[in-house]
Each structure stands twice: as structure tokens, then as C-alpha cells.
């Protein structure tokens, strides 16, 4: 991963540094929010399924940026930092849901592609998104980064911390699995 955030400092100096840089940080975070929040929220939606969770993940990512801005070795990589934060946040949400399911609790919000949610038009799309949701985590992430965000393979390599070969093969396997599933259903 190319985004380098130095190890956490003690709360004192971190807070002091953050306070020193605060007005500029606010400005920067606001600009980044205006430019990227919608896209990141949509990306999170595709990974976690529901809008409230996606919004929370993105908000946490921007708050995390405040915390980490002073320690971000290359502030020009802030967007990549946010993207990785959102990916990590989505993983946390999905892990929490898995634990909740094991305890017998259901998901708080229906997925946007579920039958309960009436916001998405097209049965075929619903089925496809439902199938994508069943794919292994890395395959889902590669699909979203590649076909929604339109990232290059090298950008995906940087975000996921895997080799270029892994990105290509993961995407191919994911598409093949979806095609097979589509064929079985047809």
C-alpha cells in the first residue's frame, strides 16, 4: 500500500499538532468532501449494501483524515488514504454484521438490491448485485474498484496491497463466477 501513515503518536502531541493545523485541515477536508464524498459513499454502498452504513463509513473516513492529516507523509495522497479508509470501514461493517448474524441478529437495514428495498429498478440488476454480494470479499472489492471507480490495475494494487497478477486473476475469477451463476439461473 502506498499510503503511509506513521504509527500513532501519543494523544498529546497528536492533538497539539492537529490543533495547530486545524483551520487548514478543515478547509482541506471540506474540499475533499465536496469532491469525493459522493463517489466514496456510492462505493461504500456497493460494498455494504445500505446507505446509512455507507454514510457512516465515509464520515468515519473523513474524521480519520482529520486525525491522520498531520501524520500523512504525502498529503497529496489524501484521496487514496480516504479510499483505503472506506475499504477498511466497509470490511469492519461486514465483519460486525457477520458476528451479529452468528448471534442471531438480523441486519438493521435492507441491502439496496434486496426485495425489501424498492429503490433499485430492474430485477436483473438486483439479481446480479445479489450475486456479487455473495462473492468472496476480495473479489467484490476488485469489482467495485475496477468497474465502479474505474481504477487502473496499478491503483487497485496500491489500494488492496496485492500484486497486479492477483488483481487480474481475482477480477477474472469474479466475472467467471458471476457468468456461471447467471448461466445456472438461466
Amino acid at each position, binding site marked *: 500500500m502506498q499510503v503511509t501513515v*506513521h*504509527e500513532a*503518536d501519543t*494523544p*498529546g*502531541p*497528536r*492533538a*497539539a*499538532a*492537529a*490543533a*495547530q*493545523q*486545524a*483551520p*487548514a485541515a478543515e*478547509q*482541506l*477536508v*471540506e474540499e475533499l*468532501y*465536496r469532491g469525493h464524498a*459522493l463517489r466514496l*459513499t*456510492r*462505493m461504500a*454502498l*456497493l460494498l455494504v449494501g445500505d*446507505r*446509512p452504513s*455507507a*454514510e*457512516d463509513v465515509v*464520515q*468515519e473516513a*473523513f*474524521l*480519520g483524515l*482529520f486525525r491522520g492529516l498531520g501524520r500523512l507523509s504525502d*498529503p*497529496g495522497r489524501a484521496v487514496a488514504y480516504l479510499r483505503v479508509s472506506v475499504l477498511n470501514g466497509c470490511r469492519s461493517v461486514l465483519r460486525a454484521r457477520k458476528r451479529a448474524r452468528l448471534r442471531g441478529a438480523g441486519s*438493521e437495514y435492507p441491502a439496496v*438490491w434486496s426485495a425489501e428495498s424498492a*429503490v*433499485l*429498478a*430492474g430485477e436483473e440488476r438486483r439479481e*446480479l*448485485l445479489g450475486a*456479487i454480494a455473495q462473492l468472496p470479499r476480495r473479489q467484490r472489492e476488485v*469489482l*467495485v474498484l475496477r*468497474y*465502479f471507480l474505474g481504477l487502473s490495475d496499478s491503483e487497485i494494487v496500491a489500494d488492496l496491497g496485492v500484486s497486479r497478477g492477483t488483481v487480474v486473476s481475482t477480477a477474472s475469477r469474479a*466475472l*467467471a463466477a*458471476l*457468468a456461471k451463476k*447467471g448461466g445456472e439461473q438461466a
Partner: protein
Amino acid sequence: MKGLEEMPMRAMEERVRDAFGAAAETVTVQDLPGPPTPADRSRAAWGLRAWAPRARLHALVPVAAAACVAVIVVTATVVVPRLLAGPAGGQAGALAGAPKFFAGVANPPEHFPPSTVLKIYRSATGQVAATVRPPSPEHEFAAVGRLGNDRTYVAAAVTSFGACTTQLYRFGIDARGRASRLTPLSVPQVTGIVLELAGSADGNVLAYTAFGSSRCVLHGHDQAGVIHLATRQITTWSYGGQGATSFSSVSLTADGSMLGLASGPGDPSGASDAWILPTSAPAGPLVRHARKVLHLRTGVYRVVLNNTGSQAYVETGPASGRRGVVVLGLYDTTTGKRVRQLGRLGLGGPYLAKLWFSLDAAGQHLLVYGYPASHRVTEMNLTTGHRASTTAAHLFTEGLTAAAW
């Protein structure tokens, strides 16, 4: 054959793109909650969770809508006029006898990625008299302090805010506020990122606070230090007590013989102890060599020694715990008793107020700036109590983070 095999994959790719696009469009820009607020930022900066759980937020939508209306009304009718008028009892412009200029570290919004410059501001208007660029494109300014008279300053520059050392530079300004070239200060390398700088009025001693990330020698701890410029000797002190503690608001007596600083856990309640120690004390734990002047549960945010060290100007949190207000008082450094309250500062409101002070070389005036009204600087005559404020929008947009006069 290959082309035929690729066909289903290409078709699947298109279907995936189409489905992703359709699902993504169910979120619109109107759905977004907006960027984290300054209050969220403050809490985030202190490592606290600022984002309430979604379910509770949804339940609070009607309440929040009503609150927003109330905030707008109050802002329009109360806060804006107060902002324009300055603090109670204040006047516009500069105070007689106060320094005509102050130097500040600014982070202009047009800089992306963010980078800092030094600016020389006119005290009376807040307008920029000069801009000083970092010594190299790789450097950023981290702090600035006055050294000696009100025309000489020392600036701290780092190559990144994750760096392990700080370089110090001296520069001066002329009668029109124009700055001279930066000259490297001939002192040994300073360990950590310097957060604050203060020079003695006689120009012989420089004090600083610094921190280092866990990669550096300081291992995530704060350090206070003094540099005796004649001998180039650096003496440093770490906290040495129980728990993690940050240092803030370093200051010196006019002759550089005594150092004052605040320490605390670094949470929103702010630093809680004020310390004073001789700059000739040996290096080592602060708790062993320094004398604790004051301890307050409501927080000791800033400690600025007067020129003799007999008294200190201390910023504390209000006893009521009200956010948005801080109390400035004059304390006796021998007894730790408050001599008098100089005033309550800040706009009130929900945000944590944090003000920074800079004492002029004569020890007669304080420059006050900070949150939440970070577009305003206030001068205070410490003898008469008179205040004068200037409001300049660019002070906020440029993010004045450290100032010296």
C-alpha cells in the same frame, strides 16, 4: 477463439458496470450529511468518536432540523454582530505602544497539497505585510517565535510533520514589515517536531516544545527544551511522571533564566498543570527539576510568564465547564494564587475554545488568537486591561496556527 471467449466476459463487465451505476445513483449529493464539523474535528483530533450511531441520528432528524433553524437565527442575530464588534469592551484597531506587526505560520488554502508559509501581519488591520517562503520546497514551517525585540523572529521548519528533526532559522523585519532572508540558526540539531517557540526578550535564550513520532528518538513523547544561543547548548526535559503528558505554551522570562509551560493528558479538558523551572536546570524529568505552580481540574491551557517570572498569564477552562469560553487570569508563580481575572474570552457556543497568547518583548501586551473565532486577533494591554480586535477573513482561511509579536 480468444475473441469468442472474451465476449461473455466483456458482456459481464458491462452488466456489472450497469448494475453498479444504477445502485450508486440511489445515493445523491442531497443525501450526504455534510463534511465533519469543527466540533467533530475537535473531538476527532483528541481521538474521540465524533459520529453518533446512525439509528440515533435518524431518530433525531426532526430535532436536528429545529436546532438548525435555531442556530441560524441565533447566528444571524447574536453571533455575527458580536464577531463584527469584537469582544466586549474592545475597540477596533491597534493599541498604543503595542508592536505594529506579528509573524504567523499560515497555511493558504490555494496550496494543495497543503504547505505553510510565514506571514507578517499588521497588528492594526490583520493585513499581510510580507510573506516568507520555506527555505526549500521540501520544508514546511511548524512554529515561529519572537527573539529579543519585536523585529527579530525564529522560525521552525520541518521536511514533513512525520520528521524526526527540526531546523531553526532566524529572520528580521524592517519598519514596514518587510522580512529579511532566512538565516539558519547556528545551533545543534533539534530532535522532534517543534510545536512552539519562544525567545527571551534579551535575545539570548530560545525555548521550545517538541514531539516525535514513535519512529523517532522521542518515541511519541513530548519534550521541552531551551537553547542558550551564546554557548549553543541545548537542555531538554521530558515529563517523567505517570501517564502520557503533552507540553504546551512554552514561555521565558525576559532574561531567559526561567521557563514556564503547561502540561496535561492532552484530552479535551486541556493541560492541567503549570510548571516553572530554571533554564539552568539539568536535563531530565520535568517533575524532578521543575516546580508545579498550579493544578486545575478545569484545565490549564496556556501559561505565559511575565518578564520577571513572578507572575504568569494563565488560560484556564471555565469553572462552569461551559465550552466556547476560556478564562484568562494573572497568577502569582510563588503562591499559585490568582492575583486577578483579566477576562473571559471566546464566543461561547458549543465548540471547544482554545486560545493562544503571545507576549510582546516589553511584557506589556498580549496577542490573543485561536478558536472558535479564528478570523480575529485581539490585543490586550496588560496594565489597563484595554483590548483592541481586528477581524480579517483571511486569518481564518489561511489558518493562522502560530503567531509571535
